[in-house]
């Protein structure tokens, strides 16, 4: 049986500082990423909003929260990062937060940590993190977004420092300046301009994926275990994604509740029909559990808790399902309007469905969790 830690220091609330951060991110998104604007650009050549991204990075420092202050970051942590992810989920803002600020940053930070243990951080990794912290560059971790904890990693080969391989369905790669590429057990930094990055038509309109082709492409070799760094980043990503999913579920629930109060049929607001109220009450109940699980994951990531892996796997397998359920219910309970392109709910459905796959499906997370808590086949 798994240890049952007595952790009085575990904090599942939002601190005042986190609430302030939330308020400033929410204000920026309300002004720059309202649903009409987000919907308006999803069919543009570049659906990702790099002006908004720069505002998040430079004006709010919201994209460099876990990067140390010495490297120009905020020196905050993953609890704060999770709050930003929650707000970005609430607005499905089209910015490369997951790919750059969570996954690529997470892998590079893990390398720095490994370097500290060996007595010297990698200068190239530090330089890359500094560029990210300044908002001078955006990065992507070159793994399929569907990569899951304990699962296979892409097989890019290195001939010296020349990299060759194809990696499909990479999140946020289309706008990345820097690619973080795993070959064997080594991480390489690759200037995106030197690689062939092809955006593909994506299920998720607000987080499009791209294929990355490397053909003897030059990379800069980073010291440390690349595989450990990538696996750590996948775990961080899965934990932070849980908060994004809470944001998605919250938007879907509150938007549907508001609609059912004003939509009249049979001479009554349809929100007064018990069969619909009970579905919304169930969703709210799911959201209460999802928020607690996501906060627990963010807190465990921030404190490096002993049961970090268990807590993240619990949160991701639950929150993915709750976000998707909320989005599917939102479409159904909006009736005909929910099926139209003009109503933004489909953006949330597409994000929630892609997020179900991202960094491991709920089934993959359960499969990884079970042996950790003494449930074996």
């Amino acid at each position, binding site marked *: 049986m798994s240890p*049952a830690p007595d952790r009085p220091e575990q904090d599942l609330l939002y601190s005042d500082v986190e609430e302030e951060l939330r308020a400033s991110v929410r204000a920026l998104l309300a002004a720059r990423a309202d649903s009409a604007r987000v919907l308006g650009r999803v069919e543009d050549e570049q659906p990702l909003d790099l002006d908004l991204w720069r505002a998040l990075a430079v004006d709010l420092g919201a994209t460099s929260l876990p990067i140390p202050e010495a490297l120009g970051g905020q020196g905050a942590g993953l609890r704060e990062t999770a709050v930003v992810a929650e707000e970005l989920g609430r607005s499905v803002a089209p910015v490369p937060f997951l790919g750059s600020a969570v996954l690529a940053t997470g892998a590079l930070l893990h390398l720095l940590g490994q370097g500290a243990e060996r007595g010297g951080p990698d200068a190239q990794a530090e330089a890359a993190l500094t560029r990210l912290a300044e908002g001078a560059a955006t990065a992507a971790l070159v793994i399929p977004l569907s990569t899951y904890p304990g699962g296979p990693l892409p097989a890019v080969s290195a001939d010296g420092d020349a990299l060759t391989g194809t990696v499909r369905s990479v999140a946020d790669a289309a706008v990345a300046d820097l690619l973080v590429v795993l070959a064997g057990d080594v991480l390489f930094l690759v200037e995106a301009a030197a690689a062939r990055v092809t955006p593909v038509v994506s299920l998720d309109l607000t987080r499009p994926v791209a294929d990355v082709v490397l053909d003897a492409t030059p990379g800069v070799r980073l010291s440390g275990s690349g595989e450990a760094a990538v696996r750590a980043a996948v775990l961080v990503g899965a934990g932070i994604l849980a908060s994004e999913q809470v944001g998605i579920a919250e938007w879907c629930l509150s938007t549907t509740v508001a609609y059912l*109060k004003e939509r009249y049929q049979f001479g009554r607001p349809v929100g007064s029909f018990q069969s619909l109220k009970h579905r919304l*009450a169930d969703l709210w109940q799911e959201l*209460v559990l999802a928020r607690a699980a996501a906060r627990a994951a963010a807190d465990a990531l921030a404190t490096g808790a002993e049961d970090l892996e268990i807590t993240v796997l619990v949160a991701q397998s639950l929150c993915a399902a709750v976000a998707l359920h909320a989005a599917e219910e939102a479409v159904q309970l909006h009736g005909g309007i929910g099926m139209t392109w003009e109503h933004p709910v489909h953006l949330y459905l597409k994000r929630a469905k892609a997020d179900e796959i991202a960094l491991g499906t709920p089934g993959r997370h359960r499969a990884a969790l079970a042996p950790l*808590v003494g449930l074996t086949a």
Partner: protein
Amino acid sequence: MSAPTTAREVRDLVADLLARHDPATTERTAFLNARWEAGLAWVGFPVGLGGLGAPRALQQVVEAELAAAGAPDNNPRRIGIGLGMAAPTILTFGTDEQKQRFLRPLWTGEEVWCQLFSEPGAGSDLAALGTRATRDGEDWVVTGQKVWTSTAHTARWAILVARTDPDVPKHAGMTYFVCDMTDPGVEVRPLRQITGEAEFNEVFLTGARIPDAHRLGEVGDGWRVAQTTLMNERVAIGGREVPREGGMVGVVSDTWRAHPELHTPEALDRLTKLWVESEALRHAGTRMRQQLAAGSPGPEGSAMKLAFARLSQALSGFEVELLAEDGLRHGEWTMFRPELVDFTGRDAGYRYLRAKGNSIEGGTSEILRNIIAERILGLPSEPRVDKDVPWKDLPR
């Protein structure tokens, strides 16, 4: 003396109590009465009523210190209705005389309490209840039938809601009383349930007499008083602190571990899914307690109860199914009256059947969903046909 505000001050008071009354040599009831007099029964209660007027969070410190010293407790599971429902209601609505008379033996366990609310014709629609109380001099005379009364057969007192005015709409005509269970007009009969035993009772009231001095709140204000009781009941059901794998999920996980010959991949995934939800529910409980401690209670309690009922039922149903050949057999159907109820006790069949009550007792899951939808999400209520109709004219 001003109320203590720190754990250190409370620890000093506990140390003083232990110095004066050694738990090893003091008789249980005597120790509990000494603890009451020291204000360490429930520190959040007022001075003179077993408390210190201190922050409620400090109660944990008292419990931990006394448990560490091996002091006897008041067996809270045996007197849960008194502690969780009667006490907060008496504290809120009782007269000084009522508080002085009832609270101390309630807390020490010298007097057990039960609850006379539900009736055969008034379950979810509690406000439709028909047990009549009519005034006779300084007394009220009560006639009617109550049901689902746990601990009625051991109780000295009951909290009771009865109809005192049938000519006004249902919510307006009720009054809240403390009923003496030893009155000759009170008859308790066991109510056998689907598990075979009788954890609950039916209570028949036939001209039972209640002095007006045992009325809680104003005549006609019974609905409002009852809301205080019910709110506390829901908090008590969902709010307990549990370790990882505490409760049903731990029992069923242990059954899984003990029976590798029954494992299938499909069953493992289903169990893991329930394990995940149970762990999230545990986090939600932690979060709710942290909100309470931070002084900003959220409405999560009703979500906790809904999820608790759903998971208890799913887990216990899974266990019976998993046990296959043994799932077809059952421990016993013997009729008896348990003093304590353990949702996770006995065997898989009992757990499965008893869990069916979790979505009915303390507010059905359907009523809870209405409450969440209307009070938390702000959705409009269903059209009401009974709101302005005198109780006596309602169809039944």
